[in-house]
Every structure is written in C-alpha cells, then in structure tokens.
C-alpha cells in the first residue's frame, strides 16, 4: 500500500511537469502542439550527449537540455506556428510532421537502439519494502519545485499575468498594451524547457529511444484535457489521478497499464469536452 502511494507520487510528479509544458501552449497559444513530444525526445538525448558522451556534470546536462528545449520552442514558434497561425488543423498537421522529422534526425545522429541513462543521482532508498531510486526522488522533487515556481510566476509576475490575459483573449490583451507575439514566444520557450527537462526525467525513469515521445505525449494530452484547459490546479490533480491509476492498474496487470488511460481520455472527451475542471471548450 505504501509502495503504491510512493510510486504513484513519483510518477505523478513526472506526468505533472510534462503536462504543464503542454497546457501552457494549449491555453496561451490556442495551439495543439503535437511536436511537444519531440521536446521530450530532444531533452533526453541532449542530456545523454552532454553528461554521458561528453562526460560533463549531470547538472550541466539537465540545464543544457532545458536551454535547448527552450530554444527549440522559440524556433518552432517563429518558423512554423506563426506562419500557419489561425488554422488549427494546419498547425496540428505541421507540428506532427515536424515531430516525425525530429525523431528521424535523432535516429540519424544517435542510432535506432535504445539507450539507458545513468541515474541522475545514484543510490536507492528503501522505505517499507519499496525501493526508491534517489534519481526518481530527485526528479519528483525537482518537478514539484518547478511547478510551484511556475504557479507563482504565472500568478504573481507581470509577464505571467500577461500570459493569462493572452490566453483569455488575444484581442483584449492587445488593447491593454500586451505584445501577444512576445508573450507567445516566452510561452513557447518555457514550454520547450519544461518538456525537455521532463524528457530527461522520463528517460531516466524508463529508457531513451527514438519513439519514446508518443506515450508521454498522449498522457500529457490526457492530463491537460481531462483536467480542463488553462487550469493549472486541474492539471496537477489529474496528473495524480492518472499516475496513481497507472501504478494501481500495473500492480494488478502490467499489460493493461495504458488501456485505462486511453479509455479515460476518450470517455471524458465525449461526455465532458470542457474537462473536469476547465472553464471552456476550445474549437
């Protein structure tokens, strides 16, 4: 029981950080960014390259992953999303194509085989019969720290409130003197960094391989949609709901782990499209 509780908390923290980067774009940019999964991929591989192939400190690897992710996000916004702005299906399809391109770029550079990341912090702690790698613990704690920081950033700072304003209505925000393009760029940058760091944690939780991004992308989408667009609190709650659900299901039957997550997304989307805690629907 305690084991389920601990593992559930660790996994949920991970899902929360991945989903948070996704929900930022979805609520501010009004864009379904399917290439979000590619940030995870690139974050994971950047970390792998810096800390395991170059042998630099692990912290530098995480930091660099975040920076590369942020850079990717801004670049993608400037080159792709702004050009296709206004047509949602075009952005979705464009980002999907981009994700596949990035995935094959990774295959070209690092090869097709899966890589195992050395733990960020080595060592294992035993609590009541449950083995907790320090690495996962650090990932969960860092996720929480980042999430809390993000919450206060969005609520308290001028830029954060401008992001909220743009997510409520770009026209109104523009009238109040907010440069929507700048806010969008900041949001894409933050989202990229969150995705890349989430990718490092996720890859050290499982494995690093070129198609690792699809499952977490779907989970991120699930968390965001079930939680409700634009609700940070909803995202947190649902990340834990799904995290615990997966841990409980996988102690019962590991093969069915993903099935219930998919059923939850489909069910909630059909029955309650605005999500459990959302304030609106997006078309």
């Amino acid at each position: 029981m305690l084991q389920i509780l601990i593992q559930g908390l660790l996994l949920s923290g991970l899902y929360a950080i991945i989903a948070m980067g996704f929900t930022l774009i979805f609520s501010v940019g009004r864009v379904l960014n399917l290439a979000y999964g590619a940030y995870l991929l690139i974050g994971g591989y950047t970390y792998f390259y810096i800390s395991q192939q170059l042998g630099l400190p692990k912290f530098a690897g995480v930091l660099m992953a975040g920076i590369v992710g942020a850079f990717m996000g801004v670049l993608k916004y400037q080159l792709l999303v702004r050009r296709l702005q206004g047509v949602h299906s075009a952005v979705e399809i464009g980002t999907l194509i981009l994700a596949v391109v990035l995935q094959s770029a990774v295959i070209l550079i690092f090869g097709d085989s899966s890589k195992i990341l050395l733990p960020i912090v080595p060592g294992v702690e035993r609590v009541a019969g449950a083995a907790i790698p320090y690495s996962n613990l650090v990932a969960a704690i860092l996720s929480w720290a980042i999430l809390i920081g993000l919450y206060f950033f969005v609520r308290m700072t001028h830029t954060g409130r401008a992001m909220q304003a743009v997510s409520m209505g770009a026209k109104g925000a523009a009238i109040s003197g907010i440069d929507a393009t700048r806010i969008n760029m900041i949001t894409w940058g933050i989202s990229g960094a969150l995705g890349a760091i989430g990718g490092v944690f996720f890859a050290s939780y499982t494995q690093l391989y070129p198609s690792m991004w699809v499952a977490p992308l779907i989970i991120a989408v699930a968390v965001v949609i079930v939680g409700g667009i634009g609700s940070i609190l909803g995202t947190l709650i649902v990340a834990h709901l799904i995290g615990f659900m997966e841990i409980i299901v996988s102690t019962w039957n590991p093969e069915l782990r993903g099935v219930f997550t998919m059923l939850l997304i489909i069910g909630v989307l059909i029955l309650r499209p605005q999500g459990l805690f959302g304030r609106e629907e997006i078309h």
Partner: protein
Amino acid sequence: MNLRWYHFALWAAFIGGMYLIPEIVSRGTMRTMIQACYLAMFAISWDVLSGRTGYVSFGHPFLIGIGAYATAILSKKMGLPVSLSIPLAVLITMLGGLVVLLPALRIKGSYFALVTLAYMELMYQLVQVIRPDLTGGTRGLSGIKTLTRGAENGYMLAVTLMLIVALGAWLLMRTRLGTALYAVGMNEESVRGSGLSTTRLKAVAFLVSAAIAGLAGAFWVHYNGSLAPRNLFDINFVFTIIVAALIGGAGTIVGPIIGAFFLTFLLEYLRPWLPGAERYLVYGGVALLLYMYQPHGLYQLIQHGWARLRGQKA
C-alpha cells in the same frame, strides 16, 4: 452531376495509363507501385473524412487496423474463405467508423484529432492484451493467405481496387451529397441552418471513409501476408497517410493518388542513400516545406501550371 466530355476522356486516359504501366516498368518498380496504390486508397479514405468535413483524424490506422485484423482473423483462425472474410471485414470496419463518429457528434477540431489518436493507441494496446491467441499479440499475424502471385497480378488487383475506389469517391463527391459534405467542412452551423442534418451527413462521410479503409486494409493484408501491430498503429503510418493526402491536395480525389505515388517513390529512391528510418528526415522535410508553401498540394500546382499554359492568369 455536371459531367463533361473531358471528364470521361481524362478518366479513360488515366485508367488506360495505369493498366499499361506493367508493360513498361520493371518488377521492382511495380512492387513499389502496389504499395503506392494501397497508400492512395488509405489517403482517399482519410480525405473523404478529414479533407471534406474538416474532422481531422489522427487515428486512421485504427480503421485500417480493424479491417486488416478482421479479415486476417476470420480467414486464418476461423477458416472462412477470403471471399467471405473481406466483405465481413468491411462491414466490421464500418461499425468501427460509427465508433469514430460517436465523439464527432459532440466535439470537433483539436479535441476530435486527439480522440482519434487515443483510439489508435487504445487499439494498439488492446490488440496485444485481449485474446493474444487470436490477434497474435505483440508479434502480430503471419502466413495470411495471399490472393495473388507475382508482381504483375498484385499490381492489377491493387490498381483495379484503387481505380474503383477513386472513381466511386469521385462520383459520390460530385453529387449534392458531396457538396453538402464540403459545406460541413466550411461551416457546420450554416449547413444545419439550411435544414440539413449534419449528423446524417457526418455519418455518411464516416461510413464511406471506414468502408474504403476497411476494404483497402483487408486487401493490403492479403497482399502482404502478414501484419504487425507496431508497424500498423504507428505514428509514422498516420503521418504518411495524412501527408500523402495533403501533399497531393486535400479535398480532391486525384490529389491523394498523386501524393501517395510521389511519397512512395520518394521513400523508395532514398533507400540507397538512407536505408533506415532516417529516410523520414528527408521525406518529412520535403513534406513540411511543401505543406508550408503549397498548402493546397501538388494538384493545385498542376492546375495553375495548366492554366498558365493556356494563357490564363493563375
């Protein structure tokens, strides 16, 4: 239906050309063309649903997979003759189309795209877990009865199917029903406002799309002789179908065919240089550039070129 003489002439030329190809090209090229024909059918199926009504499906392999698995299981495990298992597979896929229609009644846009993606992922996981003795689990099924021997016969079958599907879809889209489906894609509210039942229209689009996907998926499995869940319910497969339709020109019939042939041959000619999955880098790059600068596809490019040649303003 507003048919003109040149429609007949162009279709006759197209059909004739497709049947003459085996006389010209090598066996290897013909095998590539067979895959292109199937991809073209998948792209047409996607286009009937997404290119017209605007409900973008990211989970089309869900439908194709139902058709493929249904006929494979019926013919291999249940021992039904292929002449019975394929029509049954098409019917089962149409039921699957109704499952996809269910969310489309309430949600649209990004949400709908996501549900279809979730459908695909769900199907991928269920196939491996539920009754692995029937579905073959993770490894999939092999040793499925093939219908044709040799590249030439396979090509004839594939091309005939593709022409039937293309001509059927083309005729359907020229009726008032087809016009109404376009209208749903442009503005669903005003279609409802003109007194048409959008639910019924969407149901037609989804059923037609599912029937084509099921038919193509079933024959495809009987051509390949095997199926593997990892390759079928794959994001790269979704990508190939969508890009084929878009590069060629969404909302047309000839467009997806052009796109499918273009992509399949591009992928094939890249093989000597880039043998593995890296091909998708070039392939995706080409797709992305074309999509960003020519969002209406190659078909429109050809049309504009034709208009220029005749001295009209493009």
